[in-house]
């Protein structure tokens, strides 16, 4: 039995989690398995363990985010870490401090885990090269948001029992979405079929070469789909530059009960939040029994606990190696 448990020990040897790209199916499965175990922990009355006791986790957010930051904070605290939130906004940058200076300053505070969100693609990777601790990408520009893709995958796996061979439609503002990018990569690695449904103005160049089928029509695109993943449309993009209006967008790309009926009968609905009700998704759909949106939030904490623990396992094995 012990041996069997050892075999099942999660395999995730990377120092950082910077993106989904570059991960293998086994890494993803390992992270999901570990996260799965954390769900139960969060549902107990006493939620705290000591896995990260004495460790310092800094949440460094160059871009404000209530939800993701709270999720990482709760995850760290439930594992016993000391969690510090730092909102950098643009203040230091305006003062002329380079990102590399910021990294050096933080590094001197000796954190064990850095959770970083930044408005510029590649910024988290740049920071990871300049610090000694483990770095988790909590979203960089339009590039990646790996924990979101992992929590989406965990949510799907718990509801559909698998990821492989499912047909998953990602709908909305793909162009500006790091969530979409991480999901496309992850779902492809796990053997799911990915569709993108969006107006041409909200699709990135080369979308059809990213391992996806591209649709501009919801009825056509949702046919035979198991999971409908809606994306948030930023308010500033609703006013004519990318689409004519929120009203027109809702007409053609908003998820209504009618449009959902084109998908498989047991199709489920997801959204990374926060939602624009009545724009990309109708309340009737968002609040229906087919909606997994609340569950996604719960899985978010579990996945982040899993990731934090997986990265901490690496130091433990490193330290053993040194001894």
């Amino acid at each position: 039995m012990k041996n069997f448990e050892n075999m099942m020990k999660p395999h995730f040897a990377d120092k950082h989690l910077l993106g989904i790209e570059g991960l293998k199916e086994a890494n993803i499965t390992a992270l999901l398995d570990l996260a799965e175990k954390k769900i139960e922990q969060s549902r107990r009355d006493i939620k705290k363990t000591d896995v990260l006791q004495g460790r310092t986790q800094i949440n460094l957010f160059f871009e404000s985010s209530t939800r993701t930051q709270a999720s990482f904070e709760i995850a760290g605290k439930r594992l016993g870490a000391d969690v510090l939130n730092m909102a950098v906004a643009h203040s230091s940058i305006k003062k002329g401090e380079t990102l590399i200076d910021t990294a050096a300053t933080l590094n001197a505070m000796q954190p064990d885990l850095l959770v970083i969100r930044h408005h510029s693609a590649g910024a988290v990777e740049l920071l990871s090269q300049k610090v000694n601790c483990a770095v988790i990408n909590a979203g960089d520009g339009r590039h990646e948001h790996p924990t979101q893709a992992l929590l989406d995958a965990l949510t799907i796996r718990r509801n559909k029992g698998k990821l492989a061979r499912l047909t998953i439609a990602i709908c909305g503002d793909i162009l500006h979405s790091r969530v979409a990018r991480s999901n496309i990569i992850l779902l492809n690695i796990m053997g799911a079929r990915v569709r993108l449904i969006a107006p041409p103005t909200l699709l990135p160049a080369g979308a059809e070469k990213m391992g996806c089928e591209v649709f501009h029509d919801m009825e056509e695109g949702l046919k035979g789909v198991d999971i409908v993943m809606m994306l948030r449309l930023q308010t500033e993009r609703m006013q004519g530059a990318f689409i004519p209006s929120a009203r027109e967008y809702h007409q053609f790309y908003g998820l209504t009960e009618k449009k959902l009926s084109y998908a498989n009968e047991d199709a489920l609905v997801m959204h990374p939040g926060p939602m624009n009700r009545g724009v990309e998704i109708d309340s009737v759909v968002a609040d229906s029994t087919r909606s997994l949106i609340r569950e996604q939030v719960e899985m978010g904490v579990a996945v982040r606990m899993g990731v934090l623990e997986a990265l901490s396992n690496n130091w433990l094995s490193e330290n053993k190696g040194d001894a």
Partner: protein
Amino acid sequence: MSKHKIFYNARLIDPVEMTDSTGGIYIGDGKVLDIGNHITRDYDAKIAVEYIDVKGKILAPGLVDMRVFMNGVGNQTLKNTGASAAAGGVTSLMSMPNSEPIIEDIALVEYINGRSKTVSGINLYTSAALTQGLEGKQMAEIGLLKKAGAIAFTDGRKSVQNSMLFKRLLEYAKSHDALIIHDVEDEDLAGDGVMNEGLFASRLGLPSKPKIAETILLERDLALASLTKAKYHVSQISCVESLNAVKRAKNENAPITAGVSINNLTLNEFDIGEYRSFLRLEPPLRSEDDRMAMVEGIKNGDIDVIVSSHDPQDPDGKRHPFADAAVGAVGLETLLSAALRLYHSEGVDLPTLWRALSYNPAQILGLDVGHLKTGSPADFIIVDAEHSWKVERTELKSQSTNTPFENRILQGKVLATYIDGRKIFELGN
């Protein structure tokens, strides 16, 4: 006065006659006194001369670089620019007006011209602003600036978006026989893009700009140039579509010429790798197909000029994520070595390469340099085309060392640079 000299046993590259042959050069009083295959160790100069065996190395006109940025016009900047140029075999260059202060003032042009050669050690010419403050709104004093010694008019990194103004600029410049050099980018289409639009940009999650942002403004410029018959040079093109537009205009005998940056000839978008900010360039690095088209353009003469686009950046400006990092790269010292890649592995012969690096830019700018004939200034370089070296930032003469060729092995190096027959650079010294 230094002794007259004879360099013999040289591989002479002549970008005018388009020959590559063994011969020598006889220089004295800063001029070429004789040049050709008949100059050997036995050449009788009739007076006492120093004989120098070049040992089969390349002897060719010094390069003429028509796109060099300087941060200012102070002595130190001129000196550093001159030292970088000399180390790279560039004997003449034209600086862009985008410095601090902007070159749009008659006194400033005279100030630079009055001391540029003494301070920098090379032939350093200046262009002047095409529009006031480089803002693309009102014409600069083209006539007066030309009289003061500005050799061309350009807004440097900026493109004039207003078509009416650009038409007037061409018409007006024509009346002064002034050359307009233009960067082409439609600001709206380029948006906040920081690299070439395509799958790779999408994968990196970087905002991108499409090739059409370049081509659409180029097409406008070419139409206006052929309408006004003004002298127009597109500073840097970077994609197949732009090359086709240039070809078409040339077929129709429009008075236009075109340039390409050494970066777009030797690098492509994949070199950005994982967000290497030294590769944040304008125009952005394009696809490999585009790069190969640029090489073809040099080979068959559709593209007239290769520029270094030398643009020193404070290292702090590059210590940011890719999209927030400063744009540009140094290039004077690596220009020739990088360009020799076209000779070593892409089938471009040396006279063709030199035509784009020395003769054509000089002709376009109306300068009597970039070629070696009896009576012309003895501005030449000796080059070992085979010498391999690793580009190390610490080894560069430039104050800023933001080179896109960092840690690459380049084949070919300038051994010595002469201006007016005087050696101003020697490798290892």
